[in-house]
């Protein structure tokens, strides 16, 4: 039934001469234009909030750059295989298309898996604000660093022994805990990325990397001395609110792409036998979407991880 109706609408498959497009491709470009505005709004919000942040309040170096880089490569690979699969279809080679798309799906799922590992790491990574600030000298993440931004720092940040995700001070008290043992990070986020890199280089040349070991010593803090405790979740800070909102929205797009590709690869593949050209167009249009999702990540990665 839908078949006969679709034929009544021109340019579903063939290209209109004066525009050089078929309907679906134009529709996707328009959709992507709106997506640019959507992410544009969020990126602008990021810029706006970051410019307005108080000095020393924008965290640095809390995201895992090697894993982020690896994930970027995974996503770029998937973009490549989408393009290759479309080329294969254009040449009439369904089997090759299938192989490439399986790689695409594997990359996409892999991306989400790596991302959820990163997320979980943040959910169990805590910042603890103390009622009495620590002097820079006794602070594990700042010790020995001349360029520390403040003489005193009110918080310690790291993994907490035996504490799961999303705990708060109230929930820990409710559970009957009286103190926590935190393993502070090597650096405090109040050091800028540049200061952290400087310090890493200095340590590497002088001590051969022994600083890492001391940073893993646990620090036991009584709950009564804690002013606030938060995992690295949206509630923690504006930076993490931005990070989770942007990457989660991006992850939703990735998931949408996975659904579309999987549908076209299995139940939707019947169309290949009846209308190969239309099927190829669908891959092209979905591919456009995928490249866009990829592109968003290429902007997200440096903005959130590196800057």
């Amino acid at each position, binding site marked *: 039934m839908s078949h006969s109706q679709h034929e009544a609408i021109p340019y579903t498959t063939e290209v209109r001469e004066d525009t050089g497009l078929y309907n679906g491709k134009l529709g996707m470009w328009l959709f992507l234009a709106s997506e640019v505005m959507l992410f544009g*709004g969020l990126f602008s919000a990021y810029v706006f909030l970051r410019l307005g942040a108080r000095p020393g309040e924008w965290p640095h170096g809390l995201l895992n750059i090697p894993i982020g880089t690896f994930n970027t490569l995974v996503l770029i690979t998937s973009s490549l295989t989408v393009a290759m699969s479309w080329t294969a279809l254009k040449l009439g080679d369904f089997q090759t298309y299938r192989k490439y798309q399986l790689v695409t799906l594997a990359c996409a799922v892999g991306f989400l898996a790596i991302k959820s590992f990163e997320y979980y790491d943040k959910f169990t990574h805590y910042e603890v604000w103390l009622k009495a600030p620590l002097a820079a000298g006794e602070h594990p993440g700042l010790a020995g660093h001349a360029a520390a931004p403040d003489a005193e720092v009110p918080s310690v940040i790291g993994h907490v022994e035996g504490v799961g995700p999303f705990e708060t001070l109230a929930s820990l008290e409710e559970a009957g805990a009286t103190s926590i043992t935190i393993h502070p990070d090597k650096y405090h986020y109040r050091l800028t990325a540049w200061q952290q890199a400087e310090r890493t280089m200095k340590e590497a040349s002088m001590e051969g990397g022994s600083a890492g070991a001391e940073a893993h010593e646990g620090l036991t803090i009584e709950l009564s001395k804690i002013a606030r405790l938060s995992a690295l*979740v949206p509630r923690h800070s504006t930076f993490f609110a931005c990070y989770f909102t942007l990457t989660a929205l991006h992850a939703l797009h990735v998931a949408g792409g996975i659904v579309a590709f999987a549908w076209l690869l299995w139940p939707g593949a019947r169309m290949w036998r009846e209308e190969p050209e239309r099927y190829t167009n669908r891959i092209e249009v979905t591919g456009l979407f995928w490249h866009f999702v990829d592109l968003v990540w290429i902007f997200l990665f440096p903005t959130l991880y590196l800057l």
Partner: protein
Amino acid sequence: MSSETHELGFLRKYVFSLDHKVIGIQYGITSLSFVFVGLVLMMLMRWQIANPGEAVPIVGGLLEGVMGVPAAEGKISPDLYNMFGAMHGTIMIFLGIVPLVFGAFGNYLVPLQIGAPDMAFPKLNMFSYHLYLWGGLVMLASFLAPGGPAQAGWTSYPPLTTIIPTDGQTYWIIAMVIIITSSLLGSINVITTVIQLRAPGMTWGRLPFFVWTEFVTAFLLLLSFPPLESGAILQFVDRIFGASFFMPHDLIVSGTPMADVSGGGSPLLWQHLFWFLGHPEVYVLVLAPMGIVTEIFANNIRKPIWGYPAMVGSILTIGFLSMVVWAHHMFMTGMGSNISMFFQTTTTVISIPSVIVMTCLLLSLWGGSIRFTVPMLFAITFLPMFGIGGLTGIPMAFNSTDTVLHDSYYIIGHFHYLVAPGTLFAVFGGIYYWFPKATGRHMSVKLGHAHFWGSLVCMNLIFFPMLVQGLAGMGRRMSDGGANYSLANPSNEGVVGALSSTIMGLNVLIAWSVVALALFQLPFIFNFFYSIVAGEKVENDNPWGATTLEWQTPTPPPHGNFAEPVVVYRKAYDYSLHFKALHAQEAPEWGSVAHLPDFEPQNLPVSAETVGAPE
């Protein structure tokens, strides 16, 4: 071709239809219902303003039953007033007018006017209607949420939205995200349809003006709605996950520090994201009505629209400029003089293309043989009403005057003149005009006149006093209608600027005019449903004698629209030209369009002209 006319079941035909005309009518009926809800809210508010502190008659008990504490004793408390205010704005704009002018008229007419069999993506079209419906239902459901619906205005400014602990605001955000998604899909569909599905010969210069307006509207929705969607997402994260995108450091409300929900954010960020949509949205509300008015004009003055290219150029300019004027809604935030200079300039510049469109329409009347049909009455009234709305907006374009007027009733009067007797009148005109095509029957002229004159008088009695009240200094958000600041309040004795009894008395005038306005909608509602079944049948497929393609179809147009493939040979408004040629030889009777056409349909081959008018 769908030559095999298999019967579709009720669900497929009316609920999950893929036919753009059915979807258009679905949009129309749904959005008119929402306009009705908005009207009822407005009536309640106006009644309470005129009678502060008194229980609402008749429905007071019902209100208390539904809304609970905020409507205790059947009175509209300040909280309930805020809820109604927020929901009146939201419903009227996002669920009423926009789906009406874009979803209903756009869906029904655009494919017909460009000679296309349907929209480019019928399934997407169906999906966007259903998204809109569900978004609307979520919005209505918020009335039943514990603590009531959103109460921070249709603009949902953050410190307020975050401080109010009830769930209504969360419903509002979710509903908005659904509605925005629906609009986005709809706009993709309209743009693709206009670009790809124009019939052979339908060049850009031959597009009916209405199609141009929908085309620009679609671009506005496509590009300006997503930033609001991102704002809504951020507000959602704020409310659900405890982030603080919009809450500044060290916020203290009524002496209570807001440290739990506050820090690191900026309320201004929301205002920017909101008004980046908000201003283009204003043009979403008026462009398509301009198009409707133009179609009705061309048909009822029986001559080509004067200055068609200038009008098209103007609305394209409006489209571009409307993206760079948003911060004139934010003069009150105390922005720096450089920024405010930029936005004052763009705001004044954007009035030029609007004036060009209005001027072209006005000049088109010159030398026309005007038929004062019911649609034409509405369309011609659009000009002065929109004119008042537009001209009263000019003081708002300047920071210095805006600062004084912004929070007064003056601004309420200003934008309601644009939207109520402006946009809504164009919409009514459009309904009377295209009703015969959609149903095969005319609406009653007598009832149409009652509807028109009654609405015209009442709308002016409602909105003009608001301009006066605003200039007298009445604030725009007071649930008691300013009674607290009036001379009637003993503590204000001798206070310069306290509201006089004349100004306060206008509240009563407005309230009764609102009642009358509602009564004058009854002829329309009756006319609409009665005429579907028992209206006078149309004598042919083109009862108004129109040139555009929607009238060259069977009545009502079947699935697939056109009986045979369409080819377009002419501009959109070829009225009178042919007639003039004939007129040179004989003097035919004016108005007898049935046997002597004074128009040439767009799909009439040019060669036929010589048959009709031998030179």
